[in-house]
């Protein structure tokens, strides 16, 4: 039986895919090698792992306004995540998701990074503000 988590904030199209999960932050500029499509900041818990086509489930958005442009640029090269799910999000990532048409959920009653297993298949439905663990 699948489990459903409900967010308070949502944007974008309905998608499903494999979750890449960590209790860590996210900044497209600080944390990623956007050419290779992997996390590259040595201190990041997902360092070395590919985010391309994955549903990122992370703690929060970190500093750096560049992410607002970068999601769009990454998407045009097919190097973007499929969706991003945060416990808490800052405006930059929301602006970037709006600009780059990347699905986003944020704001849960529980720690979404603990609730979703790394590697799980999940479905994101922004209209219902829901994340379903398949």
């Amino acid at each position, binding site marked *: 039986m699948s489990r459903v988590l409900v967010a308070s904030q949502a944007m974008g199209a309905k998608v499903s895919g494999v979750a890449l999960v960590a209790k860590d932050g996210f900044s497209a500029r600080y944390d990623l090698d956007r050419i290779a499509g992997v996390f590259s900041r040595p201190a990041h818990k997902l360092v070395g792992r590919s985010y391309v086509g994955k549903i990122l489930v992370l703690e929060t958005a970190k500093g*750096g306004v*560049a992410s607002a442009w970068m999601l769009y640029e990454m998407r045009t090269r097919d190097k973007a995540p499929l969706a991003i799910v945060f416990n808490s999000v800052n405006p930059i990532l929301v602006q970037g998701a709006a600009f780059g048409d990347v699905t986003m959920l944020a704001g849960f009653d529980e720690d979404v990074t603990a609730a979703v297993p790394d590697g799980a298949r999940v479905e994101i439905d922004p209209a219902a503000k829901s994340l379903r663990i398949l």
Partner: protein
Amino acid sequence: MAGESNLGLHALMRLGEEEKAILAGEQGEVPRLALEHQVKVGGFFGAEDFVPVTQAHIMADTESLGEAGVRWLEKLAATKEGRRTVRIPTITDPRGTDFTKSKQLGQADWMVDLERRAVAAFVKLGVSMTDTCINYQTVLAATRGEHVAFGDTGVVIYSNSVCGARSNFEGGPSALSAGLTGRTPRYGFHLDERRRATIRIRVDWTPATLNDWGALGGVIGRIAGNYWEVPVIEGIDRAPSSDELKHFGAAMASFGSIALFHLVGITPEASRLSDVGGEALPVRRVGRDEVQALRQSYAIDERVDVVVFSAPQLSLFELRALADLCDGRRFTVPLLAVTSPQVKPDADRFGYTQRIEAAGGTVYSGMCFYQSYAREIAEANGWKRLATNSAKLVNILGGYGYVPMLASMEECVGAAETGRLA
């Protein structure tokens, strides 16, 4: 803002007559796309309406934009019908190069070409190319209660905290949208209730150097760790300088995504702790040992390939201090000092540039080190071990393959001479 979209469930904001007209395309496609983007963002955050803004500041270096972003800008700039220029003073963050020294940086021609195309597009959109992240020191500081739409996290945190202005982090597409529409969604730090303190920090030591101000900002940023947190800080025993607060805020924003802090008795909204609700919060003490631990965590290698002063751009008096330290030295590794196009002419006029460059350093203008294809110029120049006095820069550059080290300006200049951090 990228193209057609269905506002759907996000179109919950209360819109005025002009906003409805803009969305209906009555002012042209450029304002329509801009406002549509703003409605999507405002809807996500539950903004009730828009607030007029008086200035916008756009972060748009081409490493961030890429070819796709520049093409998108060029498409906007080529729009023939309707209004396509900004309605309010709209300025830019540093570019991705100093056009006069791109070869010296080891940048490829395509990087400079992309920069020139972006500049041309912005000019057609009516944007003023100030190319600075220290506009609050050099162009036009926002005032208390002034609603603005600023990009660059360092600009936002300084303007919110030190000036008492009101801005969220506005990424490039959103800041440009605000310039084009003259408004921004009313959420976050535009609202009184979001400006109250959420974390109370008590320090037992006041930093003396810019790198330690940055490190303290970084420690507090890590503790807060979330855009929506607002630290109120007690225990600073004197009024810091603008440059000290510049490094403090920029690092806090970089390490923790923080957009607003209060210093009790110093910043304008916190004459007293109770002004921001701090008296009801538990105290978290931060000692000098935590600041030293942060600095020590970056002390990986004594050898240095390059010394960089940037992020934020240097003020006139940071350049003067640097020039004083350069006199009589001869550098064995490159030393880069980065400032704004507003400061550079005065640094030239006062002889600071000449004194830094006589020792073998180089003063760059209108760019920022990490926004200038940092990964590619590292490969082109063989740079890996980098010394800087900017806590913000050490936080960023790990992701670009550097081994960044945090030290005082004096120690960094010494490293440029000997190739080693003492």
